[in-house]
């Protein structure tokens, strides 16, 4: 087994997880503050999450 690659994959998952987690959390807060804007916030949240996910996957596949 080659360990650096596995550790790298783990780090990538941690990074992407923290990023998407923060986006989700902040979106929750924003929706709680302004429930009427929830539609727009969700859309923006999904786009940002998708972009981070894309980077995460790209890194995973090259690791």
């Amino acid at each position, binding site marked *: 087994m080659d360990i650096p690659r596995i550790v790298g994959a783990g780090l990538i998952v941690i990074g992407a997880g923290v990023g998407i987690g923060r986006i989700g959390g902040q979106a929750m807060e924003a929706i709680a503050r302004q429930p009427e804007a929830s539609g727009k916030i969700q*859309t923006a949240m999904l786009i940002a999450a998708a972009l981070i996910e*894309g980077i995460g996957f790209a890194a995973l596949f090259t690791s």
Partner: protein
Amino acid sequence: MHPNLGTEMLGVMQKRTVVKILLIFTLVFTTSNLFAKETEKEGEGDIKTEIKEFIDHHLQDSHDFTLFSDKETGKHYGFPLPVILWDGGLKVFSSSKFHHGETLANIDGNYYKLYHSKIYKTDAAGTITYDEAHHATNVKPLDFSITKNVVSMILIGLLMFFMFSSLAKSYKKNNGIPTGIGRFLEPLVLFVRDEIAVPNIGEKKYKKYMSFLLTVFFFIWFLNLLGMTPLAVNVTGNIAVTFALALLTFLITNFTANKNYWGHIFWMPGVPTFMKIVLAPIELLGVFIKPFSLMIRLYANMTAGHVVIMSIVGLLFIFKSWVGGPLSFGLAFALSLLELLVAALQAYIFTMLSALYFGMATEEAHH
């Protein structure tokens, strides 16, 4: 409030925690015991590699539509598909000639071998030569076969054609009110228009892109859902398919882009000249990264979903006990529900980001 209520509740909670911990311990203990027995009997390494091979095989495209196989009798249940090769002339034959890779296909004196789901030209004995990295060095004829993925795509294409033409017809017949399947499709079409196209592209220009956005949305969504059926096709988890979809987005973005868009890429307005020179290559790279990330995202999401669900189903064969059944069923059921959501979400995100790129490409100068 009763003064003892707090401590009583604490006591109840502690009892519950103790029970939970005991339960977990018994579970772990019994499973580990079973594990040990299993290793003594057969060696679970074999089962693990078998599951791995099965998942690898499932993720790949194949030349015949096998629904299930019987390992003991070596029989495969399914149907063969046409193989179309270009090897100094068109060669069309049925994939049943390969017998699932067990025999060579002899076509007009040429021998073809199915090896790891790819077709190689070989001699009469069927030898495959390798280089140092264990890659086959045999000649690979151009392969235009109607594979499992192609069949699925044709199926979904026909399904979409009939569904949407019936929707269009029902508008004519029924004074603009959809009937039948159209009642399910109309809100989705409106969703793509009102939530994806109009906010991202703008009122004036969205109509030109609607046909592409709708097609891509439903195509990806239906193919994702088809991947969740026991037919076990993995079309959107194939990088060639997502590459073609992303290529379409790339071409449409760049061929409909206006002067303002190219201006923002090569000569960014409103920044110092030095920064303009620095930004140009980065922005140019961005033009290619955008569709690349579309491709990777869809491919990786669907592949990951399939791998996770199949590994969890595979737990059943590793545990081989009363623990494995409910565990694997419960997890696989929950994950399948999640995958249904992901199927729609990925179609939405692909369409949404495509619309976003089209909107960026057609934005008018506003200063």
